[in-house]
Every structure is written in C-alpha cells, then in structure tokens.
C-alpha cells in the first residue's frame, strides 16, 4: 500500500503534472465527462426535437452549430453525442482490459501448453483486419450500442494480453513472488494480489490510447449507418447527414468531426503523457 501510493504521489503524479500537453488532454477528458453527465442541463434544445421551420439553417445565435435536415439543434446533438462516445470508449476498453489481463495473466503465470494455446490465439486474432471483423459481426447482430461496445471490446483485447504476459514473465521471477509462495499463498492470490497490481502500468497506457481508438471505431460504424441508430445522436451518425447534405450544410460535417478530433487527441495526449511519466528512461 504505502510504497505504491508514495510512488504514485512522489514520482508519477509530479511527472505527469509537468507535462503540459498531457494535462491539457486530462482537462479535456474531464470536461467531456462533465458534458456527458450534464448534457440535459447544458443543451439549449432537446436533441431529438424536430422543427420543420428550421431545417438546415446555418449556425446562428439561436443555433450555434446550425440545425440538421429535420431541424434538430446540432449543438445539442453534439453535446449528447459525447455521452455515446464516452460510454463506448470506457465500456469497450473495460471489456478489452479485463479479458486481455485475464489471458495475459494465465498465459504468463502458468506457461507451458496454456501459454502456447492462448498466445497463438492472440496471433490468430491479430491477423484479422480489425475493422472488417467488427463490421461483419455488428451487421449480423441487431443494431444496439451494447453490441457495439461488446464487439469493439472483444476484438481489441489482444494488445493488452501481450503486454500483461510480458510483465508477468518478469514479475514471476521476483523474490517476493517466491516469498509469497513459501508462506503458502494460493495461485489465485499470488496472481491477483501480487502480480496483477505490478503489471498494470503498461495496461493503463494501452487503455487510455485504446479509448481513443474505440471512439474512432464507433464513430466510423455509426457513420456507415450500422452503429448508433438515429434519432439517438452520436458524432458518427450526425456526420452521415453531413455527407448526405454536404452540398448545402457544411456545419453538419464540421462540428461533430471536430468533437471527435478533440476527444481522440485528448485521450492520445493523456496516454502518451502517462507513458512518459511511467517510463524511468525519459527525463523531463
């Protein structure tokens, strides 16, 4: 407890704090959380309210980001879209981290045929062009945000598994693991209490970067019309209208795309920042 906490407090956090780009990313992520939670309070309009008199009107004081082909307020839709992307990012990566860690821990700790079997499965899964695989599965299922999150998670755990396994292989040989075994700890206790906490730091980096990737994937799926279904607003499906009305309404394309760009950028900057802060070789 104490060693770990003091490392975080005295080494990791100050190093992260000094990285201005990473902190900017962290602030953006924080603001996005607030927006997602408070979307109904902040949004000037109901994101699904149709207004036949205000169809495709350009940005103005009453509609900051303009309106779409059904007269819905794009600003409100973009705010509510933040909810979707955040949910998808976190849940999908949550699934990927849990599954990947489990596979990595089992393969690294037990070794032998289990290791071979699991790692070859990882190799096989990595061969598939990820987006093609996701597309195939999603289209065959009913369109639902839960399926999207599950499928992105289930096709994205392999990197985490490799990272965790590599960490476990090193940690397994440490004296404190031997000590734990000598005092009679069970395998499960050793894995969960002694190995897992020490193997997590590279996972944190992969997860942060992974959230960005998951958000991009979701928006691409929704853009193709097989992700989040209208009228529920998602950045990707607003861009679908943007494509359909590209000759008349640039605002439908510009704003949701900027939202994706800023969000993904923020997670990437934060992830790289965490990587640098955790890496003893980088000196800033």
């Amino acid at each position, binding site marked *: 407890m104490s060693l770990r906490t003091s490392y975080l407090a005295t080494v990791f956090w100050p190093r992260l704090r000094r990285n201005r780009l990473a902190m900017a990313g962290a602030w953006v992520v924080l603001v996005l959380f607030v927006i997602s939670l408070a979307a109904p309070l902040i949004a000037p309009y109901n994101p699904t309210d149709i207004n036949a008199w205000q169809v495709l009107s350009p940005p103005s004081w009453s509609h900051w980001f303009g309106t779409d082909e059904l007269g819905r307020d794009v600003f409100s839709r973009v705010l509510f879209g933040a909810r979707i992307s955040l949910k998808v990012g976190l849940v999908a990566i949550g699934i990927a981290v849990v599954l990947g860690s489990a596979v990595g821990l089992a393969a690294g700790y037990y070794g032998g045929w289990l290791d071979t079997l699991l790692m*070859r*499965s990882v*190799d*096989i*899964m*990595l*061969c*598939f*062009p990820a*987006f*093609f*695989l996701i*597309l*195939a*599965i999603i*289209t*065959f*299922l009913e369109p639902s945000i839960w399926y999207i999150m599950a499928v992105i998670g289930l096709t994205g755990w392999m990197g985490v598994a490799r990272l965790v396994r590599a960490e476990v292989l090193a940690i397994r040989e440490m004296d404190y693991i031997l000590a734990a075994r000598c005092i009679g700890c069970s395998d499960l206790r050793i894995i969960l209490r002694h190995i897992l906490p020490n193997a997590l730091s590279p996972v944190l980096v992969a997860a942060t970067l992974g959230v*960005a990737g998951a958000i*991009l994937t979701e*928006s*691409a799926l929704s*853009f*193709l019309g097989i992700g989040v279904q209208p009228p529920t607003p998602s950045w990707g499906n607003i*861009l679908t209208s*943007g*494509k359909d009305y*590209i*000759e008349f309404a*640039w605002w439908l*394309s*510009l704003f949701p*795309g900027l939202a*994706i*760009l*800023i969000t*993904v*950028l923020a997670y*990437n*900057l934060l992830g790289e920042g965490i990587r640098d802060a955790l890496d003893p070789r980088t000196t800033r």
Partner: protein
Amino acid sequence: MTVWLLKRIAMLLPLMLGITLITFTVIHLAPGEPVDMQMAMNPKVGKEARERLTKFYGLDQPLHVQYVTWLKKLSRLDLGRSFSSDNRPVLDKIKERLPVTLSLNIIALVLEFGLAIPIGIMAAVYRNSWLDKGITVFVFLGFAVPTFWLALLLMYFFGVTLNWLPISGLHTLGYEAYSWPGRFWDLAKHLLLPVAVASFGSLAGVSRYMRSAMLGVIEQDYITTARAKGLSERVVIWKHALRNALLPLITLVGFSLPGLIGGSVIFETIFAIPGMGQLFYQGVMSRDYPVVMGILVIGAGLTLIGNLIADLGYALADPRIRHQ
C-alpha cells in the same frame, strides 16, 4: 536461420486453420439467414422453394459438416459462389475488384512512405526544434482525425466549394468518348482525393516511427565515429544514419501488405470506389456469407504471410538479427 524459417512456416498451417475456424464461427453464429434475405425480396416464394434453396447452399447440414466442406473447397482455392442473385464465384468477384484497390493503395503507400521518411528524418535531426514540434503536432492531429471526416472536408472544399475535383466514382459519365490522355486525366482527378485520404491515414504513424528509429540510430557510437572522422553532417545523416534507420521500416512495409489488398471500407464507401472494401461492405449488408468469409480469410491469411515476409526481410537486411 533456416531452422527458424522452417519453424515459422510450419506454424503457418495451424494459424491458418485457426483463422478459418474463427471466420466460420463468427459468420455462422450470426442470426438472420441469407435465404431470408432473398425471400424477403420476393414474398411469392413458398416454403418448398425456400427449403430447396437452403439445401442448395448446404445450410441445412450441421455446422461442422458445413465447415469441413468449406475447408475442403478452400484448400483448392475455391471460395464458393456468391449468395447474391448473380451467383458468381467469389474468387471472380474478388479478382474484378482487386486491381482497383491494389493500384489505389500502392500509389497511396508510395506517397505515404515518400513523405513520411523525410518528415521523420527532419524531426529527428532537428530534435526539439520548432520544426520537430510542428511535426509532432501534425502527427498527433493525424492520429486523431477520423479519415471519413477528412474525406468529407476535402470533398466539401475541393468538390463543392472550389468545384475542382469530382467527389465520387472513378470515371466521369461518358468518359469512354475521351482520348487516352483525357481518360488518364479523368482517372487521376478521381483518384486524387481518395489517395490523399488513404495516405494521410498512416502518414502520421509512419513518420513518427521513422523519427524514433532515426533518434535511436543517431545516438549510436558509429555515428559519433563518422562525425569524429570529419564527415560532413549531410553524409553522416543521409548515408550512415539513414541506412540503419530504414531497417525497422521493412517491418512496417510488411505490415502494410494486407491493407493493400483489403482496402478500406470507409473511404471506398464514401468515394464510391468499386474496390474490395466496398465489395466486403455490400457482402456484409446482404449477408453474402461466401463473399464475407472469402475476404476475411484472404485478409487474415495475407496478414500472416505479410508478417512472415516482414520478419524475413528484416532478418535478411540486418546481419545482427540473422546471426541470432
């Protein structure tokens, strides 16, 4: 080296089997049968015809039998026939789409590496300068920009506002009437935006990779030696350092191989380009199992081979690896 290579090749078979197993499972676990799709179009078809069709496609047999049948055919490079109304062999359909995707992606790849290598070198040589920082910003933006959004913006700017470039397809209507140079110009204009989008997508990644490879090399002792013996900075960077920094790029080229064939669903759909990505998308949308499975298996198999080529190429180019 030979033993290593043989081991790697021996591993290909079980991995390939795994790939086919996953493809098959994924596709067949999905609810909604292809026969339903065909029937939905034509309500007059009775139950009997429906069963005949199911039988014709072999969908009435247990899954493991279907799998073995498919696998046997696959080993003869027979991917079966498409479920769509034209009922053509999947391989023919793929062959027809391949040249489009392949040529577009090769142009994009050449452009991408042609730009990324100098960008990466510049960033590494002038490390921490304004140039490096500018390039880093560009790289981060490149990672974060959704390609389909970039495509939309370019379409809006060059296609709609400026009206310089066409925004979809590969040819203008009635392009057959053009002379040869006219046709070429027409094609080039249609390809410009898709190629730009396709190469931009990975430009950021490759240039960052190049930068870190170059940084790793510049710190080596032999570079210090080269400088110490009085070689000009230009020779040191472009001759001594570059050659060594290019080695890891071989791996990247290997990794890009499958993408050359697979193409991209997103930008082929946006720009209405009749390539592999579009074929896959259409196949998925109409539950055309043979097409979807064919492309997935080819894609994954090529990745497997691409990885092997990458490792092999790397080992051939770098004696330090070869002798391990």
